[in-house]
């Protein structure tokens, strides 16, 4: 990302892959990329990429670029190097490469230093799933399913609907829709134009506070900026190990494999310990989900209990997070 114009190329920087279809004048036809919590390639596949490529070639023939208020002008220029914490971040590296997630990490750290950071700022580029719309991974302008009791249900959206535009912006892909949602306020009414049985339908999604949050943001590399971490790494026990320790299948069972946090060592946690409860959470978690828990729910300086098994004994330790972030 070194030297990239961030006023032109705006996307979810926690991703590992993102693409844009553009003309030579820095204008966009479509975006392709993005992901759901479920996996990094939830909506990356050959069929949908080929489909949008064909659509873009058709739009290019007619010079039909995206227009409207959600499109960056690219007239101003702002690079990752200009984000104040970035210099210190890359100074420590032998290879001075700025990764995509570094942009978001530096941005969030800058907000934190200025006391302007709010935890929900980590939930950038929400997807239609947040509104109850499951997008067809192969035909990304089609609704595959609608979750009951969501803004999508209340707006009357149905399986099979084709999404034509969101807030006046053409939608060909998940990433196109996500672009509009990124720029939609937490409380808003979002107009959608759909096609159903050959007819054009307009509806409105009514959004209230909290819609941007997703259930499992543990994949977000930038999450560590918004809250404290446990300072350890580990792995889930397999079925055989669980049976040996008499730990039920759907309960937390993480074996500690690496510790880097001084606060983790002060709590008395050791490599080899099996963690079975973190504060009031004892459901099965991956190590990323485990580490995400305090980042989302605690603040620096908090003390939480952790229950662990060591050499056949169960014990409770208390972990006190550092009083301030350690960058």
């Amino acid at each position, binding site marked *: 990302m070194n030297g990239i114009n961030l006023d032109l190329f705006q996307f979810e920087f926690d991703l590992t892959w993102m693409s844009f279809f553009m003309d030579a004048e*820095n204008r966009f036809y479509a975006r392709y990329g993005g992901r759901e919590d479920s996996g990094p390639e939830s909506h990356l596949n050959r069929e949908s990429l080929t489909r949008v490529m064909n659509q873009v070639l058709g739009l290019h023939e007619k010079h039909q670029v995206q227009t409207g208020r959600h499109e960056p002008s690219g007239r101003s220029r702002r690079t990752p190097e200009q984000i104040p914490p970035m210099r210190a971040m890359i100074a420590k590296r032998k290879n001075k490469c700025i990764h995509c997630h570094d942009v978001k990490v530096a941005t969030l750290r800058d907000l934190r230093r200025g006391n302007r950071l709010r935890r929900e700022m980590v939930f950038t580029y929400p997807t239609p799933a947040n509104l109850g719309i499951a997008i067809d991974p192969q035909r990304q302008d089609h609704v595959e399913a609608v979750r009951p009791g969501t803004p999508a249900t209340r707006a009357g959206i149905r399986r099979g609907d084709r999404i034509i535009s969101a807030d006046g912006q053409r939608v060909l892909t998940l990433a196109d829709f996500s672009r509009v949602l990124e720029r939609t306020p937490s409380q808003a009414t979002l107009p959608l134009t759909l096609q159903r049985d050959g007819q054009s339908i307009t509806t409105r999604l009514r959004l209230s506070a909290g819609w941007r949050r997703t259930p499992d943001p543990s994949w977000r590399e930038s999450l560590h900026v918004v809250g404290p971490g446990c300072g350890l790494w580990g792995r889930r026990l397999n079925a055989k190990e669980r049976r040996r320790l008499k730990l039920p299948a759907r309960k937390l069972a993480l074996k500690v494999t690496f510790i880097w946090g001084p606060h983790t060592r002060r709590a008395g946690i050791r490599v080899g310990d099996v963690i079975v409860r973190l504060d009031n959470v004892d459901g099965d978690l991956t190590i990323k989900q485990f580490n995400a828990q305090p980042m989302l729910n605690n603040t620096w300086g908090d003390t939480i209990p952790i229950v662990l098994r060591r050499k056949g004994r169960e014990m409770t330790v208390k972990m006190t997070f550092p009083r301030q972030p350690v960058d």
Partner: protein
Amino acid sequence: MSRTALLAATMLATTATSLLAEKIPAQKVDGRIDWVYDYQRGRSLAKQTGKPMFVVFRCER
């Protein structure tokens, strides 16, 4: 050539490295697509050829 590769070749396939790419070498990609590893060069080629661009960001962690 696969259909997707053919379509990408119909566009200009470029990765969005900057002028600083001279200092940080581009990590080239194997395969059948002829990538342009500099955005401004890709843009110039798009102007010359009249093709749209397929601009890809990929991040190794």
